[in-house]
């Protein structure tokens, strides 16, 4: 098993405030990894650093490439479509994705959109929060890449939509690809995770196998996660 992601000594400051420092992280291929941490702990920042959307110090390699443009070709990030005005229809957004991403698989998108009951003729402004997230997930997973970064795909989404999204992740995840899912509420995704990465106090507090927590520690993932916060670790409320 090779590394899909290798981060070494990554640091990031915003407005002279440290958000992340001394981050080392390696992810192997074919995994579903939960990125956990409080709001503002730096989960989104970590993902943005991986895509090159945020600029930090340190080394980041995705599938062996460190150059940002090449890295981008190996990463599919669940961006929230803010580049489109509200008048855009879902199908037009799909067409945009198909044009700029050579690895966009239209048949895969169609299958997912059907499963998630996405109506392509709807305008972006007419989508509910859950439906918009479904569109984002389908677009993100329709690219054939090595690393998928899903940033809080379940925040503010009803449980039916959540279940559908989880099923589509399981069904359409390419075997060799790794998915990093960030969330601050663990329980809803705990059964699908191979590994867990916890961001706390500007760094990676833990990187551990999900069944290792259950097997060796005999703990629920949520309890384990909360136990990390009990021993006086101060949470960080900056973004």
């Amino acid at each position: 098993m090779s590394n899909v992601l290798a981060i070494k000594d990554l640091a990031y400051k915003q407005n002279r405030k440290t958000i992340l420092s001394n981050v080392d992280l390696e992810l192997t291929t074919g995994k579903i990894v939960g990125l956990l941490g409080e709001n503002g702990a730096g989960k989104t920042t970590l993902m943005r650093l991986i895509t090159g959307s945020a600029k930090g110090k340190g080394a980041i390699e995705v599938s062996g490439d460190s150059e940002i443009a090449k890295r981008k070709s190996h990463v599919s990030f669940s961006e929230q479509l803010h580049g489109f005005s509200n008048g855009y229809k879902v199908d037009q957004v799909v067409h945009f994705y198909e044009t700029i991403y050579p690895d966009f698989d239209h048949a895969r998108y169609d299958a997912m959109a059907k499963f998630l009951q996405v109506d392509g003729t709807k305008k972006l402004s007419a989508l509910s929060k859950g439906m918009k997230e479904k569109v984002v997930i389908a677009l993100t997973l329709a690219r054939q890449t090595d690393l998928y970064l899903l940033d809080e795909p379940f925040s503010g989404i009803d449980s039916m939509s959540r279940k559908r999204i989880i099923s589509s992740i399981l069904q359409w995840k390419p075997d060799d690809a790794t998915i990093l899912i960030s969330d601050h509420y663990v329980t809803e995704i705990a059964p699908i995770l191979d590994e867990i990465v916890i961001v706390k106090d500007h760094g990676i507090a833990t990187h551990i196998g999900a069944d290792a927590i259950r097997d060796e520690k005999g703990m629920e993932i949520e309890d384990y996660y909360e136990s990390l916060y009990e021993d006086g670790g101060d949470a960080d409320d900056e973004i």
Partner: protein
Amino acid sequence: MKFDDKVPIYYQIKTYLYYDVLTGKLKPGAKLPAVRQLAVDLTVNVNTVQRALTEMIAEKTIISQRGKGNFVTEDQDKLAQLKEQLVMSQLAHVYDQLHRLNLSDSEIVASLQRYIDQKGAPQDVERISD
């Protein structure tokens, strides 16, 4: 399927599949769903399903045929053994609980007999989820 997050998921998948085998949902010699299909049906990770299946293959309760898939064993001894295993593990649980209530072994047998009499002929064993 609902999981208990304290118990390793692969272990729960095994138990789930064994129940399907013993209740006849999966007949001896029947083909198991594909790994990904199982993952989607149970809402768990493909790797976790794979781990559960690997252990079941090692225990020889399912047989892996290269390129064809996984099949429930037709070895009746093996199935009987599996049933015995599951019955014993359920009884162990009950026994343990009753023991904690300071019941003696004979009292436990007696109360179990009483329970069965009251209930009539119980059709199904209740699944104990923890």
